[in-house]
C-alpha cells in the first residue's frame, strides 16, 4: 500500500485532479462541518439567490454531527455520517466551488456527475472511528446556525485528518471497484 498524501486546504483544481480512488490522504488546514439540517438551509439560501455564510470556493465540507466536547477536549467524537442524505443538496454547492466532501457511503449519479463536471472529490473517513478522528481537530468554532446544536456549521482546523478518496474527477468509484475486486461467485 502506498504512503498517504498530505494535502493542505483550500483545494485548487490541480490538487483535486491528481487524486485517484483508493488514495489515502491526510488533510491539513480548515474544513467546514455540515449535515442534514445545515444543508437544507444552505440550499434555501442558494435558491433565494442569497450569500452563503462562508466562502465555499475551494473548501471541503465534512458530514459530521459531533458529540459535545468534554472539558479539556477541543472537539467531541466526530466520525462521518452517511452521505446519501446530502445528495439532494450537494450538486448546487459543487457548482458554487465546493471542492471536497467527507462522509461515508455511496453518492448518487447526480453528485458524481457534478464532481466530474466541476472538479471535486468525495472522501470517506472511517465511520464509527469518532474518538480517533476527534483527536485530529485542533480548533473548532461555530460559524453558522448555532441553534442546530450538533448540526451547526463549524469551522475546524485539522491536522492529518485521515481520509480515503472514494470518487475522483474521472468518475471512478472505490465502492464499486473495491467490491468488484473482492466479490466471489
Amino acid at each position, binding site marked *: 500500500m502506498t504512503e498517504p498524501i498530505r494535502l493542505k486546504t483550500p483545494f485548487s483544481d490541480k490538487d483535486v485532479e491528481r487524486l485517484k480512488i483508493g488514495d489515502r490522504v491526510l488533510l491539513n488546514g480548515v474544513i467546514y462541518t455540515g449535515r442534514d439540517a445545515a444543508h437544507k438551509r444552505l440550499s434555501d439560501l442558494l435558491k433565494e439567490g442569497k450569500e452563503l455564510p462562508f466562502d465555499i470556493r475551494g473548501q471541503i465540507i465534512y458530514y459530521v454531527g459531533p458529540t459535545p466536547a468534554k472539558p479539556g*477536549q477541543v472537539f467531541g467524537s466526530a466520525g462521518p455520517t452517511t452521505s446519501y442524505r446530502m445528495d439532494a443538496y450537494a450538486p448546487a454547492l459543487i457548482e458554487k466551488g465546493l471542492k471536497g466532501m467527507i462522509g*461515508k457511503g455511496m453518492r448518487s449519479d447526480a453528485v458524481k456527475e457534478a464532481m466530474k463536471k466541476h472538479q471535486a472529490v468525495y472522501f470517506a473517513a472511517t*465511520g464509527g472511528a469518532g474518538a480517533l478522528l476527534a483527536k485530529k481537530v485542533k480548533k473548532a468554532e461555530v460559524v453558522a446556525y448555532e441553534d442546530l446544536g450538533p448540526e451547526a456549521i463549524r469551522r475546524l482546523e485539522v491536522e492529518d485528518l485521515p481520509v480515503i478518496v472514494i470518487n475522483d474527477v474521472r468518475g471512478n468509484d472505490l465502492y464499486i471497484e*473495491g467490491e468488484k475486486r*473482492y466479490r466471489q461467485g
Partner: protein
Amino acid sequence: MREIDVKLITEKVRDLCMEANTDLGEDVLEAFDRAIQKEESPLGVEILKELKENARIARDERVAICQDTGFAVVFIELGQDVHLVGGGMKEAIFEGVRQGYRDGYLRKSICHPFTRANTGDNTPAIIHTEIIPGDQVKITVAPKGGGSENMSRVVMLTPSDGIEGIKQYVVQRVKESGSNPCPPTIVGVGIGGTFELAAFLAKKSLLRPLGSKNPDPELDQLEFEILTEINKLGIGPQGLGGRTTSLAVHILMMPCHIASFPLAVNIQCHAQRHKEVIL
C-alpha cells in the same frame, strides 16, 4: 415481594448509557482480531486496526466510540416478585437516559419526525419490558445508531419462500446496504411471530455475544451459511472492498401464523454497544 426504589434504576441506566457508549465489549474487539487475521484487503486491515485503536482511545479517555451515540434502547427483564417504589419505571428510565447523555457528553440525536426539532435530552428512550419469574431486575442499555438502523427492513415473505427465501432476502439486504451501515456489520435476523415481533426478535438477537453459538443447531447452521454468503459479496470493511462485510449473523425465531412468514433484518454497525446490570 422485594422492594426496589426506582431511583436505583435511574442511577443504573445513567451509568449504562455512558459505559455502553465508551467501552466496546471484549467480544467485539476479539471479533476485530479474528477479522484482521482473515482479511485479504490491505486497506480493509488498516480500517479494522483503526477501529481497534478507536475503541482503545474511547475506553482510555472515556469518550464516545462514535459520535452517533444512538437511540437509547432499554431492555428490562422485571421479576414478578419485585415491587418498584418511589415513582414510575418509565420516567425513571427516561431520567437515567437524560442524566447519562448529559453527564457523558453524548450526542442528543432524537427529534420530532416532521419539524426535526431536537428533544434536547435524548428522550424518549425505547423500552422493551418482559415480566419474568423471580425477584431480580435486569437492565440492558443498547444505544442504536441511525445509519445502520436506516438499512434495516421487515418483510412478510410467503411460506413457500422457505429457508432459501430467508437467505436470499438477508444477503440482498446486506448487499444493497453497501457501505452505508458502517461495515463490518452484525446482522440481526428475526423470523416468525407477527410483523412487529419479527423486528423485536431481530433487535434482541444483537445482544448475544459475538463469537457465541446459537443454541438451536439448525439456526446456528443457517447463521453460518448466511454469513458465508454475505462475506462473498466483497463489500468489506467500510465498503472499500474485502472479505469482512459482516462479523456475525444472529437469528432468533418463533412460531408464526399458518398464512405468514415474517422476516426482519436489523443491521448493526461494528460499534455493537450494549451493557447490562442485574439488580
